[in-house]
């Protein structure tokens, strides 16, 4: 299992997420080489076909590109574009489930705003 990821999503999506996180955090800088399919599959202990599927997802989206005979590299501008993507997904990924959970618990809008402000002050 890939460390730090949930088991809700298929493994290839977890591989894609692992790479996305590393690009966003700057661990894999733009124009640098990312680990090979062998390295990824060995390190995550998954079938290489699964690792390839995850990598291909990022290639299709233009975050990674292939240099023939050399391997996979992070595309220029990938970090900024990924951050934009994440902002777009923020509403569906965080706000909607937040509201659903609050509804389930009977929390008022005021309660929630108070908690968000409290949280922001601690950061």
């Amino acid at each position: 299992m890939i460390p730090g990821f949930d088991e809700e999503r298929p493994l290839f999506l977890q591989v894609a997420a692992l790479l996305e996180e590393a690009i966003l955090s700057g661990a894999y800088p733009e124009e640098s080489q990312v680990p090979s399919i062998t390295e990824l599959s060995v390190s995550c202990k998954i079938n290489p076909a699964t690792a390839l599927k995850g990598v291909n997802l990022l290639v299709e989206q233009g975050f990674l590109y292939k240099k023939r005979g050399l391997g996979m590299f992070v595309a220029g501008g990938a970090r900024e574009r990924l951050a934009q993507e994440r902002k777009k997904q923020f509403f569906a990924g965080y706000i909607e489930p937040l509201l659903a959970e609050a509804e389930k618990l009977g929390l008022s809008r005021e309660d929630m705003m108070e908690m968000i402000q409290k949280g922001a002050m601690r950061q």
Partner: protein
Amino acid sequence: MIEIKNVSKRFGQVQALDGVSLRLESPGIYGLLGNNGAGKTTLLNILTSRLHADAGEVLLDGVPMVDNDAALAQLFMLGEKNLYPDEMRVRQAFEATACFYPAFDIARAKALAARFGLNMKSKITALSTGYRSIYRIVLALTVGAPYLLLDEPVLGLDAQHRDLFYKLLIELYAEHPCCILLSTHLIQEAAPLIGHAIILHQGRILRNAPAEELLAAVHTVSGPAAAVDSYLAGRRPLSASSLGGLKTAYVEGPRPQAAPQGLETGPADLQGYFIALMEEESK
């Protein structure tokens, strides 16, 4: 490609295999899953001509494999049985293996033995269960055969050595694509490696499909018992368990896009699916 066509085998009153047909293609990692007595080892023994089938045949690239030395040299089986003389030491067994498998990389075998802490001077019969597994694993990883049949490869291995084994196996497969058949009870930890799952039950094939396809055709549902029961009505539940008023079930069919009101649905994992299937079969 190995083709198993309609293979049957009976031991006295027990029908160990009953009309089993399978294809093993290279490259691919196949998981052979089944409870004790399902017929897994019998199938592997027939593949390697250690046993003869009562009916049916096994072909390698279209050529019958029975007692066909050239074809059998393409296969390596890691099994529980030690086929070398009792007095043999690990080093001697490596040398003997080199005679049968010309592609055997003895230098790498020695390096891996050192990495696992396997003493080359030990007699094979004097090795502990764990080290006997390691001895077999080292052979399987270095023998250079295009078809590897691994019957419970991690028997008695500690967590660290199991981890090392899986990593070495994936490395081998990624760098030298081959056909690996992995027969194991430890489904959870082998699942991420398995590309194609074969589920054997009482000598028959119950499921035989790419793991991803298999798992996409089943989901879990949980929630208040009454709500789960009405969800299950008209569907095909595999197994269900209750914890007080909370009920959880495995259901055949793809997971719905949105969970029905008050229920939670989730993806199935290979081990959970296997157990659910076995419970359904034993009803």
